[in-house]
């Protein structure tokens, strides 16, 4: 029989993971020389993890009872876990905005203040002096229902907000390893959004129709929570992990890039032949893809500059134009005007990775057109 992981397992997993990340980030913060120069994202990560550690610590049944007895306030752990989870997500989204070079919208600032104010006021006007309850799923009265619904709604929306932020980071990431990092990082917020949305929907249903309560649904929702707790540390894995994962993809991508660039080189060769044409063995090329991509870009730029020179001026010489590694022996035929136009689509002042991506894109487009 398959046993569905319990809520305790979730808290344990989330707590331990958060503790490890928090300690690791503490070390990073400590290493910084001055407070002013501390990495703002790392500081936010540390706060997020610390809040999750505290939340996980006070979420066990034993802690619920002992904290209520110690403080004399019933269900204080409800309040603290909801407040801390909300704050953790707010801090995380703020950190993601820093990475995105964007300002956190005023609505996000206002929402956390409003949520805290409502939860605290609801708690201290009825819940704190009601019976001690460990279960968060079934609301006993309308106040509890409202208390839970506001918390679930806020947390679900904030989880979804972090997904949208991470999606932006996927598209803006230059390196494949960075894009893989953000893609995998969205897994946990997706599960978390599902969990809190399910709770947001399920809690009022069983409040209104208690006979519909079903343990299978409880377990299913709980299982989604466990998945969220297991997957969230992905966000904090070191870059080397994602670089390692990305290696095979990068290699295949480079191989295809070189093929595309070689095609473009051959097309330019028809107009401006290369002075040096080394025919390297395939194996040598496969072992040094980066190098051959670089050489292909140089060769393309060389050809493009010669064609530009020809277009811009009447060049008179025994060789119409002579570049570093290419020469234009005769005026290009009108047929070749198209390759000149195609090459103009790329802005050569771009950084190298963009340059490679752009020339690859036009090579593919040109190839497609040539086939058609």
């Amino acid at each position: 029989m398959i046993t569905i992981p319990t809520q305790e397992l979730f808290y344990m997993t989330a707590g331990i993971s958060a503790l490890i990340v928090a300690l690791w980030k503490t070390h990073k913060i400590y290493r910084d020389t001055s407070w002013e120069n501390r990495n703002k994202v790392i500081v936010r990560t540390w706060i997020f993890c610390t809040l999750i550690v505290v939340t996980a610590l006070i979420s066990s049944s034993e802690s619920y009872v002992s904290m209520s007895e110690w403080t004399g306030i019933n269900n204080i752990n409800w309040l603290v876990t909801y407040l801390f989870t909300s704050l953790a997500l707010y801090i995380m989204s703020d950190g993601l905005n820093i990475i995105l070079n964007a300002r956190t919208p005023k609505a996000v600032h206002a929402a956390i203040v409003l949520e805290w104010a409502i939860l605290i006021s609801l708690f201290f006007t009825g819940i704190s002096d009601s019976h001690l309850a460990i279960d968060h799923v079934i609301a006993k009265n309308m106040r509890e229902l409202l208390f839970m619904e506001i918390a679930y709604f806020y947390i679900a929306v904030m989880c979804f907000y972090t997904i949208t932020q991470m999606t932006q980071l996927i598209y803006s990431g230059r390196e494949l390893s960075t894009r893989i990092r953000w893609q995998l990082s969205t897994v946990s917020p997706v599960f978390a959004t599902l969990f809190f949305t399910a709770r947001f929907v399920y809690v009022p249903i069983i409040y209104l129709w208690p006979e519909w309560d079903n343990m299978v649904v409880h377990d299913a929702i709980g299982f989604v929570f466990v998945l969220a707790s297991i997957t969230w540390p992905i966000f904090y894995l070191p870059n080397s992990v994602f670089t390692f994962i990305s290696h095979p993809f990068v290699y295949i991508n480079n191989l295809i890039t070189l093929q595309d660039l070689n095609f473009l080189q051959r097309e330019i060769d028809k107009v401006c032949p290369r002075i040096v044409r080394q025919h390297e063995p395939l194996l040598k090329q496969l072992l040094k893809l980066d190098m051959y991509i670089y050489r292909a870009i140089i060769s393309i730029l060389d050809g493009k500059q010669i064609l530009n020179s020809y277009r811009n001026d009447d060049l008179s010489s025994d060789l119409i134009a002579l570049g570093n590694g290419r020469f234009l022996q005769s005026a290009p035929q009108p047929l070749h005007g198209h390759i000149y136009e195609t090459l103009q689509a790329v802005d050569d002042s771009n950084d190298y990775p963009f340059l490679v991506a752009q020339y690859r894109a036009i090579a593919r487009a040109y190839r497609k057109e040539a086939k058609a």
Partner: protein
Amino acid sequence: MDTITRMQRKLSELDFDFSTFTIESFAQFVGQHAGTNIQFIGWDMPPGLFGAWVSLKDSPRDYVFYNKTSPPLLQIHTKLHELGHILNGHATLSVTLDELRESIKTNQLNYLFKNSLLRGESGEQTTTAERLQMEAEAETVAELVQTEVFGNEAMMHLLTTESSYEEADAYLSHLGLKQ
């Protein structure tokens, strides 16, 4: 012996440590090897010319002009290509410092560059075959250097063009060689 093998031999004779490669350090090394002082100058080159090498008659100094409007990647490649010519001892235009200054003053420098395609002081025109051979040698040197730089994981030095020689920059400004 084919061009590649000959150029490989030349580079190995140079015995440069490519793990320390920067375009300036390599130029300095090639300069020492050739008994001259090499300086790079970004210039608005005439159409069809990417780089030019002008040697001074009256002092051990060589100027490598490169098209400052070219993409940075191509600027470094052009510098390597011109260093390839120097390393091979190819013939180039040789002028005095005064002649160089005068050509700058009278905006005749680009005309000089076109003449740098001539063989030395004699003014004898190089043939197409000779020019292509020289270009092939210089280009092969550039390619072999790039291979070495990649092999030593110093690729980033082939992508940026920032000069670290402020003193040299000041000297060139004084000569009027810095636009």
